[in-house]
């Protein structure tokens, strides 16, 4: 091992160049892991070093960074996450993305903490990495095929499904900027990372390793796992039964559900797409990520009707956006749309949000059937949703413009600004910030654009815990910061956020698990590391020219009062948002423009790392 840690890390990075077909390995210094943990933190550092502000997403100079965490692949529940970092085609800026497919586990079983893919292939290629040996293989047979087919072919290549298979769909081949990356049965959903693969003519990666991943104190790790399992059985029973769909009902009842392109925040068809409907009429099974006993993935199958045969792994976001935000109460259509996105290669969230935009524009008469190749793009029409998504994936009609993402749409039609809902180019998640103001900061200050994961999931704190007034302005800055930092370090460890509490990775962690895994006393430094990572990412944003104005919310959130539903009349003004933002920047130690101040760089011990 190149590293002095007793477990979890290898200290080795694999570098693969598609232009020159060359492969090299290099060491990752221990201090990067000590300061940034791994996963998202170390990927951010590599991005900082190697992807400058002048690099554009489809340039040869853009890179794909894949990074496992110290706990990835260890015998702990849901210790299977890895991170991707690249310049996003959808936003034009920094992207970090989290996934529980097996790439991280198998890279580590090959002896690597991560991999950087550079350059561009001259013809469709897939990478085969077996026990660390890299081959550049001809992917011409895979081009144009749907993601599930290619994933199966990749398993065939190594003769086993106990491997990591990654692919991008036909939409990515057409450089559709909202294309996702499929990994085994999971996804790197946001930011259009799939199109980066498309621009590099990289159709897939399959990795198989069988080496052992060292663990410092195996006995202690076993105790932690046994204890974690008991905790999860009690605390995550609803996740197993209903999946994350359990949030549809409360979010809707509280008037925070994006409805018809965020025009309002309560969906009258909510009962028809909630967890009860899912459980009683559509659920056909649970899907677990590797090594996870919770199995929150709910498989939905449509048994009758026009969408008969549709089958997809549903979750809150997909149901909220493909359902409520498109005005669709037909759960079968939501499942069909989910599956269509998965197979064609589209991010379900940006795909659904842009379809909702198309529906609003159509209903306002701003686009017509001439633009939509005959589709009557109306809210509530499931078939129209499917047809619009296909239009985007195939770049037909106005799909060619929508394939450029929110920023591309606005560049061509600045007059549509009132209707295009995004922050930094990324469309939001299935929460309306007018319903809880911490969420406004979540969307505004997430380092990758409007995102509830990276930006801080404040639902429990603001809507369920009773400890916060959701419409208060004070106190939201520090709250959002602490959730962001917690998530930043969890994303760097390689475990899933759903299980983090069972291993004591809360806001005040004791570091026992990390010490058992790596032998290094990360005790109580973890939340600081989260802060450090977040500010490092903010420095990347500053270097890419992002300022306070890029943390602004779209006009719909800052000027339109909620027209109906449980929070009818609620308004979040620009002045209120600026108050929130000022408090947040202050908590962070950033200046008025959101630039990380010198004292903060020093106090976070970032000086040596940049």
């Amino acid at each position: 091992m190149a590293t002095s840690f007793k477990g979890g890390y290898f200290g080795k990075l694999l570098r693969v160049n598609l232009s020159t077909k060359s492969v090299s390995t290099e060491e990752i210094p221990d201090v990067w892991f000590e300061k940034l943990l791994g996963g998202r933190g170390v990927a951010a550092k590599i991005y900082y070093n190697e992807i400058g502000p002048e690099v554009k997403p489809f340039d040869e100079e853009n890179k794909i960074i894949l990074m496992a965490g110290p706990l990835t692949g260890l015998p702990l529940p849901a210790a299977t996450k890895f991170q991707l970092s690249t310049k996003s085609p959808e936003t034009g800026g920094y992207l970090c993305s989290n996934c529980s497919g097996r790439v991280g586990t198998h890279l580590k079983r090959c002896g690597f903490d991560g991999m950087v893919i550079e350059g561009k292939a001259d013809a469709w290629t897939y990478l085969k990495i077996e026990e660390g040996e890299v081959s550049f293989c001809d992917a011409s047979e895979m081009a144009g095929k749907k993601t599930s087919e290619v994933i199966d072919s990749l398993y065939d290549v190594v003769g086993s499904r106990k491997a990591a298979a990654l692919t991008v769909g036909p939409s990515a081949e057409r450089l559709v900027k909202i294309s996702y990356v499929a990994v085994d049965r999971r996804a790197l959903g946001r930011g259009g990372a799939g199109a980066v693969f498309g621009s590099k003519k990289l159709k897939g990666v399959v990795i198989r390793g069988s080496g052992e991943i060292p663990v410092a104190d195996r006995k202690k790790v076993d105790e932690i796992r046994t204890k974690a399992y008991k905790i999860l059985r009690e605390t995550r029973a609803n996740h197993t039964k209903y999946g994350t769909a359990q949030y549809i009902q409360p979010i809707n009842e509280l008037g925070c559900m994006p409805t018809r392109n965020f025009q309002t925040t309560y969906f009258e068809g909510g009962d028809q797409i909630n967890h009860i409907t899912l459980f009683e009429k559509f659920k056909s099974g649970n899907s677990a990520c590797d090594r996870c006993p919770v199995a929150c993935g709910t498989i939905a199958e449509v048994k009758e009707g026009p969408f008969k045969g549709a089958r997809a792994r549903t979750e809150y976001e997909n149901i909220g956006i493909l359902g409520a935000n498109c005005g669709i109460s037909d759960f079968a259509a939501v499942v069909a749309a989910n599956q269509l996105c998965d197979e064609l290669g589209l991010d379900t969230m940006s795909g659904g949000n842009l379809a909702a935009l198309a529906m609003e524009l159509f209903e306002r008469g701003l686009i017509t059937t001439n633009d939509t190749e005959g589709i009557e793009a109306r809210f509530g029409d499931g078939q129209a949703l499917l047809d619009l998504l296909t239009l985007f994936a195939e770049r037909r009609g106005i799909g060619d413009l929508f394939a450029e993402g929110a920023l591309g749409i606005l560049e061509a039609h600045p007059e549509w600004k009132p209707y295009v809902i995004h922050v930094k180019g990324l469309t939001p998640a299935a929460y309306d910030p007018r319903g809880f103001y911490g969420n406004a900061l979540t969307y505004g200050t997430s380092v990758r654009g409007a995102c509830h994961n990276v930006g801080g999931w404040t639902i429990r704190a603001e809507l369920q815990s009773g400890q916060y007034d959701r419409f208060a302005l004070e106190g939201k800055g520090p709250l959002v910061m602490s959730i962001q930092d917690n998530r930043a370090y969890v994303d760097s460890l390689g475990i899933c956020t759903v299980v983090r509490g069972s291993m004591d990775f809360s806001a005040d962690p004791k570091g026992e698990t990390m010490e058992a895994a790596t032998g290094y006393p990360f005790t109580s430094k973890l939340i600081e590391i989260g802060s450090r990572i977040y500010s490092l990412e903010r420095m990347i944003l500053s270097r890419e020219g992002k300022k306070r104005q890029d943390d602004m919310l779209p006009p719909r959130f800052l000027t339109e009062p909620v027209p109906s539903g449980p929070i009818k009349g609620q308004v979040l003004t620009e002045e209120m948002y600026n108050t929130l933002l000022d408090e947040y920047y202050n908590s962070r130690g950033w200046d008025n423009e959101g630039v990380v101040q010198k004292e903060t760089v020093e106090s976070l011990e970032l000086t040596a790392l940049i």
Partner: protein
Amino acid sequence: MEENRYSRQLLISDWSGECQENLARATVFIAGAGGLGSSTAFYLAASGVGTIRICDDGDLELSNLNRQILYQESDIAAPKVIAAAERLKSLNSTINVVPVLKRITDATVDDCVGESDLIIDCLDNFTARYCCNAAAVRKGIPFIHAGISGFSGQLTCFSPPETPCLSCIFPEVPDSGIVPVAGPAAGVIGSLEAMEGIKLLCGIGNPLKGRLLVWEGDVQRTEIIDIARDPECPVCGSL
């Protein structure tokens, strides 16, 4: 103390004290700690096999628990053979259980098998089966082969040159991906494997040598098919 543990089997007329000593002296290699491996390992451990080498490179997943009864829910994420070894030792603390945390390939199989007297096939793919078959031929030890699918299973004892080897009768089996399995099929065939193992090690009963058992649990039909060596078999033809 040990005699009390085994007293019920010692009452079987063919199962002498010498049989029990044979078992105690034996080392059995169980290839695969999954559905078949669970029953095979449980019954061999219970019967008093002296050393069990149990081999698998996987971690326990939720979807294993419909048939891999060696494990508990709290073992999810743990390497299977580590959990298996603990479970088997809690059933019979007087035997040795050696977890072999390795993937079986041509390069690793001889080390994995080590000094075993018998290899038992509890695998889920023919690629690894062929490795074990070749190792058994090299080491001159018997290879109990089995497979399950749905409600069905097959089973035989390979011991060339007396019997065919795996490659004589199944020279080239295509990869089958994920095989659907009903739990009891794993239980039935895995238990039969343990029984065949005991018969071979003790020299009792009529092991399935030169005979392939095909059992269909859903319609309850059993066929026993005579199988013969292929004299030109690339693996055992020279024996």
